[in-house]
């Protein structure tokens, strides 16, 4: 049993944190929405050899890929890091996202000339043949509608679902960090708001939910990289947890910040808005949970007891 990522992965994450901070951190999102390109980001990630990682074939690379996604999330990086790392260029695609129904893909138009594919999440993928303009909305600024080509078998859905959870993990980590700082700095009734027990307890509960999700992302990474029998269920369970904890963390962060938290002058607003495409695409909470239950009819939710198959669990109390 080991619950921490490799030192290699953590070191790459630290280097990437530093590099992205030097480029401007969350200001990169502000710049991207103002129309600036992401050439600097492309250059830095290339210098760090991020695109040489092959998480689908190397578990060690998989841990580094997850750590890189978390670092990207910490600054709400307007760049398809998770999507690129989930794809294998040797299979003809540079980036892959999961989408169903009318295919809307986050960050698909940010980097020119990438070969994109869309996975349906259950074993098929199709190439993106054309990309529409970015929606430019508050919650989907860099989301575009895409047209798809012919479908073919696909084995990348698990990473394509899991790595965005790691990006979201990074976003939540920053949201909690800025919330803690705000609680210590903001004074009301002649004292820091951190001195109010109701707010302390809310921070404790929210942090507990965050830590639980953080551990689950590592468990799911292990499950996917080592191809555990329940991996297909595990990624959906991880996404369910991600969507729930994102609601919890951002609700707490906004409440603690008060009105200033909605203003684009503070990073929280950007983190909150840029988390939305990850949380709504390809499926929201109820849809994801429904798919999880459906998948559990033939893939186990493994635990300490039983096979976790809906309707056919072989474990009963009679042993």
């Amino acid at each position, binding site marked *: *049993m*080991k*619950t*921490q990522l*490799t*030192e*290699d*992965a953590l070191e790459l994450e630290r280097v990437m944190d530093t590099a992205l901070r030097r480029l401007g951190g969350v200001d990169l999102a502000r710049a991207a929405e103002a129309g600036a390109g992401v050439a600097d980001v492309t250059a830095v990630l290339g210098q760090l050899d991020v695109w040489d990682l092959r998480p689908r074939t*190397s*578990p*060690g690379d998989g*841990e*580094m890929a997850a750590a890189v996604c978390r670092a990207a999330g910490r600054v709400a990086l307007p760049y398809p890091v998770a999507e690129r790392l989930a794809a294998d260029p040797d299979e003809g695609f540079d980036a892959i996202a999961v989408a169903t129904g009318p295919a809307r893909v986050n960050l698909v138009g940010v980097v020119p000339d990438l070969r994109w594919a869309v996975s349906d999440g259950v074993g098929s993928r199709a190439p993106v043949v054309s990309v529409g303009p970015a929606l430019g909305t508050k919650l989907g600024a860099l989301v575009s509608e895409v047209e798809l080509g012919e479908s073919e078998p696909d084995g990348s859905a698990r990473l394509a679902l899991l790595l965005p959870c790691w990006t979201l993990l990074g976003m939540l980590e920053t949201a909690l960090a800025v919330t*803690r700082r705000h*609680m*210590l700095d903001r004074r009301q009734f002649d004292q820091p708001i*951190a001195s109010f027990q109701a707010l*302390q*307890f809310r*921070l*404790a*509960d929210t*942090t*507990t939910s965050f*830590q*639980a*999700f953080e*551990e*689950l992302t*590592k*468990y799911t*990474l*292990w499950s996917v*990289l*080592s191809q555990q029998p329940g991996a297909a269920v595990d990624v959906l*369970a991880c996404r*369910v*947890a991600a969507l729930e904890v994102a609601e919890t963390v951002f609700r707490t962060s906004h409440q603690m910040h008060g009105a200033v938290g909605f203003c684009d002058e503070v990073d929280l607003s950007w983190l909150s808005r840029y988390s939305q495409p990850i949380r709504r695409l390809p499926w929201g909470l109820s849809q994801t*949970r*429904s798919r999880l*239950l459906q998948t*559990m009819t033939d893939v186990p*939710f493994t*635990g*300490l*007891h*039983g*096979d*976790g*198959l*809906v*309707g*056919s*669990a*072989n*474990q*009963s*109390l*009679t*042993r």
Partner: protein
Amino acid sequence: MHVGVDDGGVRVEFSDSERSAALREELRALVREHVPPTFLGAFTKNPQDLELAQSFCRTLAEKGQLTPAWPAEFGGYDATPWEQTVVREEMWAHFEPRGAQYMGVNWVGPALMRFGTEQQKAEHLGRIAAGTVIWCQGFSEPEAGSDLASLRTAAVPDGDGWRIDGQKVWTSYATMADWCFLLTRTNRDAAKHKGITIFLVPMDRPGIKVVPIDAMVGPHHLNEVFFEGVPVTQADVLGEVDAGWSIVREALAFERVGIARYARCDRLLNAAPAALGDRWATLPDELKQRWVTALIRVREARLLAYRVIDLVETGTVDPADTAAYRIAATQTDQEVAEVLMDMVEERAVGASDPADLFARAVDDHWRYAQAATVASGSIEVQRLLLSRSLLKTK
């Protein structure tokens, strides 16, 4: 539990090691052989349940599995934290067939090893390791719950020793205990954490009276214990006089993770589809969604426990880490209890068929889960611990 190694170094790994897996299987085999499926804990109205637990403890002791964490010289085998985790999980999942023994095994024994005299070690450790003695914990008082250091039960000097007067409350297993690990105030002039002394007191000593408290959690869990002029001597003192508080803090830290509540939740949730049979198909979709959410919560609670254990192994654990685990684990226990009660529908208020094991187990779990956020440090205390750690200025 084993460690994965490949080109990138030591990777995350969440499966049992070969040793842990073998231990888990050995424990399950022992439970299958010695504990009937109808067993729902030692503390029932049926005295045979307690007898069964006592017998099972002796079996575990013979197999070397009652005190696995103890050093070999005291009857253990220095089990790793991960092996201890397997024991905690398997015992709790199967309704704690060690009965009241886990208290003696998990922290009374280790406290005796650390602070006891040679005479105390010789008198007690062998019997705890053999599973033949029950201890109770004389901690809480009517005016000292979460604020334990406010305890008032007094040991007043009398001749060569002391006489103890006062009252303890919520004392589990006091009716059946042979010994009490008793906290008393020996110095009223000192700061409240500094005048506390621990006495190891046999429960048959004159002046001790136990009054059971009827409660929803069931018999034997809650008692009052009255002390009236109970004589004790220097030989009964654990550690130094007036230095009991630090022993208590250290003793309870032996058990950072505590009860593996998630393990029973895991077992009951997984049993639900088969146990409900045809009824499963008729459950509302919303309830099935709560069920799968509960499975996720249980997995998260287990992973938070593993996080603490990993931090213990590397010597970097902080009380705030334990607090986060306890907040998650106790709330999950109650959330699971609610889901399971909904699943058994009308049988939630009582199974008319004694053979309806699942409904009985769900009933037992729900009643016990009510205390999850109160016992062993209330959830509010855990929140205080965690938030103060988070908000301290660096």
